[in-house]
């Protein structure tokens, strides 16, 4: 692998993405309310610097499927834009496949793909087959190989009948599938996905999950994905990187995030009929009554002792013990971080 930036640290062969102290600042102009302020703004504009990404370090190996999580405005999309070369950083370095992305070398651009959920790469008025043909040319894919890959991808997503229809006539889900086919035709080694399932129904989401998992494994492709849907994460990613306020808050396995950031389990009890509240409250755990169903949050260290007692209580028909949903853990992570930020700002 060839390193084009002497400042970047050498990367081991199986490291596909190497990010060191990467930072991106934007200057934003404040626009105060009101006409008078607008007129003043003609002569003097006040601006401030926003750090969208501040000093991120990250290494991703070949074949990893990484989820980038974070609240809106945390810097996830900025990071993907940096890594795909759309924007240049303020500080720091990054290499993807041995190239500095923002140099935008054609050699690099033929080896990765970026799919953005709300943006169209396909030609709106033409059938997707035409856009595919154009990709064949600009990515210089051999005709035989192009046809093989196209047919394979199209069949996996079951969209063969759609590729001859003008894209504007397709549903959002159908379009997204064809966008993915277009992005994968040149067999990129690295794929960046920015909220690929946004606005899709459950069935389409599921199809796309299966498809991505399959393609990624078969090709040993390196994938980085931003999303707000924990279903995407649970279905696809072993590794999770949580970003808040431009900084990496957590980087580790999906299993570990559950372990590390939750202190309790969710125990759901089903009764024949709505139970006596006081009796349940006496167990001493936070509980939530929903008719004949009661949901308890039990400390993990106490669950072994508590369960037999609870199960022994009268009228219990069914019980389930689950981890806290990922959504909740992540939401809690985000909240804790913003509280910390507020505390930091006031001190």
């Amino acid at each position, binding site marked *: 692998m060839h390193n084009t930036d002497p400042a970047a640290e050498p990367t081991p062969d199986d490291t596909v993405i190497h990010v060191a102290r990467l930072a991106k600042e934007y200057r934003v102009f404040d626009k105060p309310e009101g006409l008078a302020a607008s007129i003043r703004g003609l002569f003097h504009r006040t601006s401030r610097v926003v750090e969208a990404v501040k000093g991120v370090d990250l290494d991703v190996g070949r074949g990893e499927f990484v989820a980038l999580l974070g609240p809106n405005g945390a810097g996830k999309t900025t990071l993907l834009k940096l890594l795909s070369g759309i924007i240049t950083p303020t500080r720091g370095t990054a290499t993807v496949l041995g190239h500095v992305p923002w140099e935008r070398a054609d050699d690099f651009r033929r080896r990765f793909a970026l799919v953005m959920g709300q943006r169209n790469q396909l030609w709106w008025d033409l059938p997707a087959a035409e856009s595919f043909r*154009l990709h064949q*040319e*600009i990515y210089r894919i*051999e005709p035989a190989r192009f046809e093989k890959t196209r047919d394979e991808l199209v069949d996996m997503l079951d969209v063969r009948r759609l590729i001859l229809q003008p894209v504007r006539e397709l549903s959002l889900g159908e379009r997204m599938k064809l966008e993915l086919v277009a992005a994968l035709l040149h067999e990129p080694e690295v794929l960046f996905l920015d909220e690929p399932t946004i606005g899709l129904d459950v069935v389409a989401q599921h199809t796309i999950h299966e498809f991505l998992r399959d393609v990624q494994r078969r090709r040993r492709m390196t994938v980085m994905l931003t999303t707000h849907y924990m279903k995407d994460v649970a279905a696809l990613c072993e590794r999770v990187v949580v970003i808040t306020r431009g900084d990496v808050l957590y980087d580790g396995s999906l299993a570990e995030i559950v372990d590390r950031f939750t202190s309790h389990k969710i125990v759901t009890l089903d009764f024949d009929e709505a139970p006596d509240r006081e009796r349940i409250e006496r167990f001493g755990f936070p509980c939530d009554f929903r008719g004949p169903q009661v949901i308890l949050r039990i400390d993990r260290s106490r669950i072994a002792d508590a369960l037999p007692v609870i199960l022994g209580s009268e009228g219990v028909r069914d019980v389930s013990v689950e981890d806290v949903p990922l959504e909740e853990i992540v939401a809690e992570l985000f909240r804790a971080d913003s509280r910390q930020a507020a505390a930091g700002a006031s001190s």
Partner: protein
Amino acid sequence: MSDAAAMPAKPFQGLRTWWTMLRICLEERLVYRGDFALGTLMRFLPIVTQVFLWTAVFAATSRSDIAGYSRNDIVAYYLLTMLTRAFSSMPGLATGIARSVRDGSVKKFLIQPVDYVGFLLAARVAHKLVYYAVAAIPFALVFFLCRGYFPPPPDAVTIAAFLLSLVLSFLLGFFMEAALGMLGFWFMEVSSIVFGYMLVQYLLSGHMFPIDLLRTVPTGVAGVSLADVVHWLPFEYTAYFSSAVWLGKVQGRDLVAALAIEAGWVVVMAVACRIAWWRGTRRYSAFGG
């Protein structure tokens, strides 16, 4: 993986890619053929007013020619100018580029190994080809009906120069407007800049009146006429020049010199467009995205 998938660059690879882009752009334009047909017919309307205006001007004066143009010459001039502008005018090009910057669709050209300017050129050639296919018959009809206004056709060399000037006017119009559109990287909205450009263009290109009329207006610097100044600017090559060539107003060494100036402007604008793209994307990468 993709090393095996990507073909090595073959000779004419760029040309092939360009051809595919052209073909796809053609297909896309054909989706809107109805809109095109209507637009073509509308183009003939303004010329009718011009003919009426000049008929009135000639009726009010006892002169048989104005700045070397007879009444017939004037009508022929406007018809030819319309033809030239069918090559050089680029409706929606500058604003389209600026829009792609504003709404972010320009990103595609940062990510994919494809050149935006080359792509725009292919799209515009396709746009024009479809337009000519639609407009050929009405144009031919109008020229046939107005044949009485035209002097006898010029010699082969003049016709060749005329055709060359048309091709150059297309390229000049394209690169000028594309460079203008690239200002979208610096200004959020370019429509007022484009409007200003259109105004200057209308006045100085010969679209409004033959540039020869400016011969009578001195600039105040050493008695140089405004027409001489305009001659060195790019505008007249997008309308006046080709018509003047056909009508035999520019001949011999003047013709060669003028074609050279036109070709020079094409190069200057193409380079300006390239630089604007290069600096614009750098700025976009640094501040926007």
